[in-house]
């Protein structure tokens, strides 16, 4: 569209057809429209059959200019190259989106020094989510749509309205050409070609002594089918941003507890987690005693769906089991688009509850045991004649800045309980008793000494766990990667359509043969988009059927070596 020449004047061909602006070869007879081109030698430019693209017009307005910008293949290539370069930037250092528990603001500087800091400051740590990268993708999408529309419609029109009789120059300037004297009666000779052409799969049209044979036209739509597939692909990727279509989170599942999966109505229970390692015998010699190689990570998982009281926090949700699966690496639990992958594990046991008994150390008498939960425990317990009321509870016992007992974290690492015990033989107001369920903590925090101070030397009650079966703990925590990707089927459909388009375009070639017999001379022109060698052989074979022996190489009019 840079040319300022008045293109209108010469768009009417000598055959009488009025061509749109930008037409290279007359839509009807195929004669080159440009005077310069008419006088030139060599092969014709057959792209889009020489028709004008839709956007080519005189005096383009604003909308036309935008349209023309995206319609340009040159621009599309620039966009693709820029996107490739941009994508490369994103591969220099790890992307933020792959971090789980890393603080990006310090990570880059600490790990990669100044370069890392600049990388982070430039926003390249989230290249693929950045506005400029998304803008490039959107522009490629626009280019795909507009390029296709701008070409496919005129091409479709040109190919469905082909004239049989073409201008002589149109034939002689193809890449496969034959001009040879012919004494036979023209129309009869041309009619004799129909059968051999049809046998080769050509569709034949005849106009007196002129002929057009054509096959595999559908392969011309291959590129446009690819574009449709790519557009569906891009739209699907875009749709992943919509709420509910995509989820990717890493969650901890403590053994034995149905844990809610946020933003869904599902709960997942880790019934048991197993990790196995290769024994020394199973490993090659050089690894023995040096390496620890995992053999199996497995989470026995049960998925529940909440059926009632799901959002009301004052009620217990009602769950019903929907599926179960032994999750292993590359064998996720999968249910209605939700997938749970094995991701990590932690074998630190987490205490859930203990069932101690109150023991009278003076008499050796033990009273009934009671259940003490780490989370949401009961407030009063009865053990024999004694009443224990829970006064304080510390999940991770320690002392704060003021020297007061306090929890250091919300996790039951070092649980501690302060009871007030009342009953026979105790003071009226009761006796305070500190209880550390874990043996390790009992010693570290000197439970004995604390209680001696609280209850005095005459105290005779102790809380004891008598059997390991009275201790309930989660043996493991399994970390699962929970994913939902509802856009994925569309991505696959898009990719499938791209594949179909590729096959259409690659495995078939659009072949056309034009010929006219006039004044004792046969003029034949052939056009295809690739495999000219095979095409020429086909022409020779067809002509042989009507006893016209032609040398294969003599058909080559230059430029058609591929």
């Amino acid at each position, binding site marked *: 569209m840079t040319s300022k020449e008045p293109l209108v004047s010469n768009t009417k061909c000598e055959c009488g057809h009025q061509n749109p602006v930008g037409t290279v070869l007359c839509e009807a007879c195929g004669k080159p429209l440009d005077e310069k081109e008419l006088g030139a030698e060599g092969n014709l430019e057959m792209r889009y059959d020489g028709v004008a693209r839709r956007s080519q017009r005189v005096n383009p307005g604003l909308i036309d200019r935008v349209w023309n910008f995206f319609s340009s293949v040159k621009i599309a290539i620039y966009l693709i190259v820029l996107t490739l370069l941009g994508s490369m930037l994103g591969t220099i250092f790890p992307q933020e989106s792959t971090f789980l528990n890393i603080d990006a603001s310090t990570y880059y500087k600490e790990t990669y020094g100044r370069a890392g800091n600049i990388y982070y400051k430039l926003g390249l740590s989230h290249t693929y989510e950045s506005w400029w990268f998304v803008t490039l993708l959107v522009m490629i999408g626009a280019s795909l*749509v507009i390029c296709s529309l701008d070409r496919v419609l005129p091409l479709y029109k040109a190919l469905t309205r082909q004239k049989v009789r073409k201008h002589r120059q149109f034939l002689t300037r193809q890449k496969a050409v034959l001009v040879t004297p012919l004494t036979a009666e023209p129309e009869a000779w041309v009619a004799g070609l129909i059968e051999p052409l049809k046998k080769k799969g050509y569709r034949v049209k005849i106009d007196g002594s002129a002929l057009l044979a054509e096959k595999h036209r559908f392969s011309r739509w291959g590129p446009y089918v690819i574009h449709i597939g790519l557009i569906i692909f891009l739209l699907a990727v875009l749709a992943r941003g919509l709420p509910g279509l995509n989820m990717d989170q890493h969650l901890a599942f403590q053994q034995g507890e149905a844990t809610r999966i946020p933003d869904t109505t599902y709960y997942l229970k880790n019934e048991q987690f197993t990790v196995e390692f290769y024994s020394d015998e199973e490993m090659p010699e050089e690894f023995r005693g040096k390496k620890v190689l995992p053999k199996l990570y497995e989470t026995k998982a049960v998925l529940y769906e909440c059926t009632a009281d799901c959002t009301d*926090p004052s009620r217990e949700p009602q769950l019903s089991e929907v599926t179960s699966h032994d999750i292993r690496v590359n064998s996720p639990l999968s249910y209605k688009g939700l997938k749970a992958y094995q991701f990590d594990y932690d074998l630190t046991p987490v205490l859930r509850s203990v069932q101690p008994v109150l023991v009278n150390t003076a008499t050796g008498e033990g009273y009934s045991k009671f259940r003490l939960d780490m989370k949401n425990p009961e407030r009063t317990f009865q053990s024999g004649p004694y009443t224990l009321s829970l006064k304080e509870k510390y*999940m991770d016992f320690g002392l704060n800045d003021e020297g007061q007992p306090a929890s250091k974290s919300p996790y039951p690492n070092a649980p501690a309980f302060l009871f007030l015990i009342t009953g026979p033989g105790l003071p009226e107001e009761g006796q305070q008793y500190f209880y550390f369920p874990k043996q390790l903590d009992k010693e570290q925090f000197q439970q004995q000494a604390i209680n001696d101070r609280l209850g005095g030397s005459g105290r005779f009650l102790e809380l004891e766990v008598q059997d390991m079966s009275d201790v309930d703990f989660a043996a493991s925590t399994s970390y699962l990667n929970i994913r939902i990707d509802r856009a994925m089927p569309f991505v696959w459909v898009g990719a499938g359509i791209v594949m179909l388009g590729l096959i259409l375009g690659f495995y078939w070639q659009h072949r056309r043969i034009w010929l006219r017999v006039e004044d004792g001379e046969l003029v034949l022109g052939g056009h295809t988009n690739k495999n000219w060698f095979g095409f020429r052989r086909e022409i020779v074979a067809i002509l042989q059927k009507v006893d016209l022996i032609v040398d294969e190489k003599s058909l080559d009019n230059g430029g058609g070596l591929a």
Partner: protein
Amino acid sequence: MGKARKPIQIVILFLILLLGGYAIGTSVFGGDGKPHEGSKAPSFELLGLDGLTHTLDEYMGQPVVLNFWGSWCGPCVKEMPALQAQYEKWKDEGVVVVGVNVGEDQMTVENFVKLVDINFPVIMDTGRDAVRSYGVSPLPTTVFIDGKGKVDSIHIGQLDLDSLEAQIGKLVDP
């Protein structure tokens, strides 16, 4: 085709603009889904210490100071008196101070409330749902929400009496 050409062009360009605008827009403005200053405060539905379920909607029209805390977090303990003082000072103006306990059980929360002697409403985020939707990472974090339900500012770390007063003042009289 000639006559329909322009409208088709306009429709296609418009669709591209719409979809492209959406894609670029989400990448520019808080694509991570966390609230930021000026965005709508995410709703929540959590059990209060009073045994009732509380939502953000019930405070609609009132400025809300949402303080995320844990009993084990030192700075949270230290800022409680300031929150209590400001709660008493501003409650007649309609300002609501809500403490959101993060992931602890009822007993711990009750004991803590008694210990630090506060009486503003406290709700319990046992499943860390509000923590997730507000994108809270370190504790304490305080979110100031104006009467229209928009996040006015987010304060990470311990609050002091004066800055707290200034921020609430801004909520009441912007």
